[in-house]
């Protein structure tokens, strides 16, 4: 039987990798990928806690499903945005998208 903490470590590591990707890549799509990794880390935590604490109720899995739903929505809108930006500015480089620069 695998101890819970292993899963938590895994999730933490995955989350940090995702953060790194989301914050350090120049390409918007890569940033999205990082975000997806973070979400998955969260899912791992949810399911692990479900498995190891309350098998009586399905809350953990339910929330994981919701997270997946939200991730899907986020991905589709994000990619739509990226495509539009690409069409208009001919770049998907996050650094060049700084029209809000003060």
């Amino acid at each position, binding site marked *: *039987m*695998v101890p*819970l*903490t*292993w*899963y*938590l*470590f*895994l999730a*933490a*590591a995955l*989350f*940090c*990798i995702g*953060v*790194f*990707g989301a*914050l*350090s*890549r*120049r390409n918007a*799509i*890569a940033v999205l*990928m*990082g975000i997806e*990794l973070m979400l*998955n880390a969260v*899912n*791992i935590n949810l*399911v*692990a806690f*479900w*498995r*190891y*604490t*309350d098998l009586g109720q*399905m809350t953990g*899995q*339910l929330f994981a*499903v*919701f997270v*997946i*739903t*939200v*991730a*899907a*929505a986020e*991905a*589709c*809108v994000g*990619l*739509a*945005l*990226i*495509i*539009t930006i*690409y069409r208009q500015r001919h770049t*998907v*480089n996050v*650094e060049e998208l700084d029209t809000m620069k003060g």
Partner: protein
Amino acid sequence: MQQVAFAVLSLITLGAAIMVVTTPSLLRSALWLILAFFGIAGIFVLLNADFLAITQILVYIGAISTLMIFAVMLSSKVMDPHQPRFNEQWGLVGGFSALLFVALAAIVSRVVWPVAQGEVPVDTIQRLGADFVGPYVIPFEIASVLLVVAMIGAIIIARERE
């Protein structure tokens, strides 16, 4: 047995994840992402969450990754592999995410988790469904609405404007 499986899966996942954030070619990192998703699906199977595992494959690999590869292909013209893949703050980010990991790990190892051993009920899927239309029906509905909204929004955003 399970430990081995876990070790392998987590190694696959983490390795793939690292490749995702480091590979210069976007398409490659998308493929690595898929591998990572597979690893996570495996983890779910280890956790007796078969339904989630399959959903993971169906949604993340079948839909999201495909979308991403699509986006990569559509925007592939502007990406020459020679320009740097990271922005100038990547070192800082790396350091701090490492710090974050250390902190999280410390918390995880410090806290005494209230672990309750128990047999996984056989009818998880039925109960999942029951909960979705039972106590969690409102979140469920909201999620569906969210999906519809996202779909419409995406269509409107990405539509070619004459």
